[in-house]
């Protein structure tokens, strides 16, 4: 045992030497998305967008003339693991900035590390309102939407479909509760005569929704307002459709279930009467910049029908590039000043980070999902851009 321990200790000591911080001739971005287990559905495409942004920046001569490199870590959808990885990225790899995150808890955990280590963190996907409210600090920024914006948009959709009796169905975890809060807050101003008749909170990761479908149909509501994302929606839809759920109600949902990765993969199983949102649609180019972005992404992904997540990751990197160029370097305090109030052109139009709460004014596309001639899947039609409230 002695020999073993000494060799072990020796191996440990070699770790002590030789970890330099980032050199002046490159900018290191530490990126954290989940790439294993269930989170890989989102982390994989997000990494594509991230890599695309870095390739474009370097092809154009780098950020502020300096080459950008990426150091990626699996955030494992686990806040403690993500925090450890974020620390390692800072102390061992010497990254200049942290970008990424998916779940609210992971976003908050990385944000806490950023606060302690005084390194900038740009949250590209987490929507938790806490990140830019209760837990706001100088080093954290968000380029994703947030649950108050999304809840407000849900209420606008209720008004649009003239919903009266609402079933409020959200997942029983932070995002679900936050989104429900945002929706309930906004409902009276948009649809004063609508009332919530049933509140359901399925658990995160639930796979069987029959029992919920039965309750929704029994409550007699005409509109479901939800935020069941990804597989949760797929499971609810596949199980609820044969009951006739989507004949009885209009299903209004946040959680980006109008994105093509859901609609495309579900094909004919995607139900009727769904109104939902997405950050981006490969078939909808509001700007010339989107067409170009879409073409480059299609080439990278090997398919024209690309997912929504790459653009979120892409925008986060592009915000940082713009800030570094404005600040004339990577000094964190200067980059923070540059990020506050910064506007950049993105594939979906100009976005601005608010100087006060570090939140970008990221809106979303909303609309009903309709069958299209010659397509095996549904597409959003018509597409409406809903900007954040107050825009």
């Amino acid at each position, binding site marked *: *045992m*002695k*020999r*073993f*321990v*000494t060799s*072990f*200790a020796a191996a*440990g*000591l070699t*770790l*002590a030497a030789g*970890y330099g911080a980032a050199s002046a001739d490159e900018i290191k971005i530490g990126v954290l998305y989940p*790439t*294993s287990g269930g989170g890989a559905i989102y982390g994989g495409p997000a990494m594509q967008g991230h890599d695309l942004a870095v390739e474009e920046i370097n092809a154009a001569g780098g950020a502020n003339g300096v080459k950008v490199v990426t150091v990626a*870590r*699996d955030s*494992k959808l*686990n*806040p*403690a*693991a993500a*925090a*450890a*990885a974020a*620390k*390692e990225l800072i*102390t*061992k790899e010497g990254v200049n900035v942290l970008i990424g995150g998916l779940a*609210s*808890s992971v976003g*908050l*955990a990385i*944000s*806490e590390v950023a606060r*302690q280590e005084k390194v900038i963190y740009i949250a590209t996907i987490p929507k*938790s309102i*806490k990140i830019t409210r209760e*837990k706001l600090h100088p080093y954290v920024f968000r380029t994703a939407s947030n649950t108050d914006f999304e809840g407000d948009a849900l209420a606008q959709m209720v008004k649009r479909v003239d919903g009266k009796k609402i079933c409020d169905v959200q997942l*029983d*975890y*932070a995002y679900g*509760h936050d989104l429900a809060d945002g929706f309930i807050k906004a409902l009276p101003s948009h649809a004063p005569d609508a009332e919530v008749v049933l509140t359901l909170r399925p658990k*995160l990761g639930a796979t069987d929704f029959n029992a919920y479908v039965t309750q929704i149909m029994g409550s007699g509501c005409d509109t479901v307002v939800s935020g069941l994302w990804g597989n949760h929606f797929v499971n609810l839809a596949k199980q609820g459709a044969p009951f006739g759920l989507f004949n009885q109600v209009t299903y209004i949902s946040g959680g980006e279930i109008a994105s093509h990765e859901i609609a495309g993969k579900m094909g004919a199983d995607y139900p009727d009467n769904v109104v939902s949102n997405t950050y981006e649609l490969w078939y909808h180019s509001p700007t010339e910049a989107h067409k170009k972005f879409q073409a480059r992404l299609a080439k990278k992904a090997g398919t024209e029908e690309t997912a929504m997540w790459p653009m979120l990751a892409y925008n986060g990197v592009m915000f940082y590039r713009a800030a570094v160029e404005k600040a004339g370097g990577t000094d964190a305090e200067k980059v923070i000043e540059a990020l506050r109030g910064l506007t950049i052109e993105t594939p979906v139009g100009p976005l601005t980070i608010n100087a006060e709460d570090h939140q970008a004014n990221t809106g979303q596309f909303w609309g009903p999902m309709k069958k299209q001639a010659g397509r095996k899947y549904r597409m959003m039609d018509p597409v409406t851009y809903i900007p954040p409230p107050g825009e």
Partner: protein
Amino acid sequence: MVMPRGTAIVVVLVLAGLLLVPVLGSNYLVDLSTEILIYMLFALSLNVLIGYSGNVSFGHAAYFAIGGYTCAILLTTYEWPLLLAFPAAVLLSGLAAAFVGYFCVKLTDIYFAMLTLAFAMFVWAVAFKWRDMTGGDDGFVGVTVPALIDGRVPYFYFTLVVVSISIALLWVICHSAFGRTLVAVRENRTRAGFVGVNTRAMRHVAFVVAGTFAGIAGALLAMYNHGMYVESAFWTESAQVLIMTLLGGMYSFFGPAMGAALLYLLNVFTIQYTEYWPTVQGVILLIILLFVPEGVVGLGQKIRQQLAKAD
């Protein structure tokens, strides 16, 4: 009670090496050492149950999480001083273990394991649902750490001191008459019963000891991360610490500590080099299982025997 001289020398050397880490090592090495020390204590605490009393817990993360959340909440929400919050957290972990243990020690083997799992998932669910108190699945972020130890190097030394004292206490407990009786209980429950040992009470005490020290580890992690998260109470965390213990070798006192260090380093390094880190870990686990079944400590002993023969 006396530590063999060889082991004692190694312990002193390791301690001396650790004391020098902040002087010689990078910030990264200081962080890594702090994390490993915490998981070493966590794994050693579990081994009081597994290695000494022969009961496998699938829910050891519960006490880790109770210690962590209690310390975090008392320090931050109620602004208790560390000298009160930390012992209170440890005490609560011990009390929780005493309560759960009361029911669990009536069972054995897989049913014991499953009952520990059920209680642990209940703790997880409470942490998840009690959003006002624990922050729910957003986590309890922004723990107030006393200024004296709020810093990379001071916190490392604080951890080193707490973990060293804890391990020393565990060593004394496991090598006392109580520890030897536990081993007897593990080896033959029926016979230990015949000679007048109250096996159930013995196992209950082991359960409480294990839970208490897991609570210390949890409190240390909460302050280190300035946050506590529900994942720390989930069954995957219990599985992880179980693997650490088995990997190191459950029938030796220091084995689980080495297992913890090994698995933690494996986690940290494989994720740096490949997206397919689970495969790398799985393959390494398989190799250890098939060729080094006594755990890392067993491997060390084998090598030593081989070397002795060669001399």
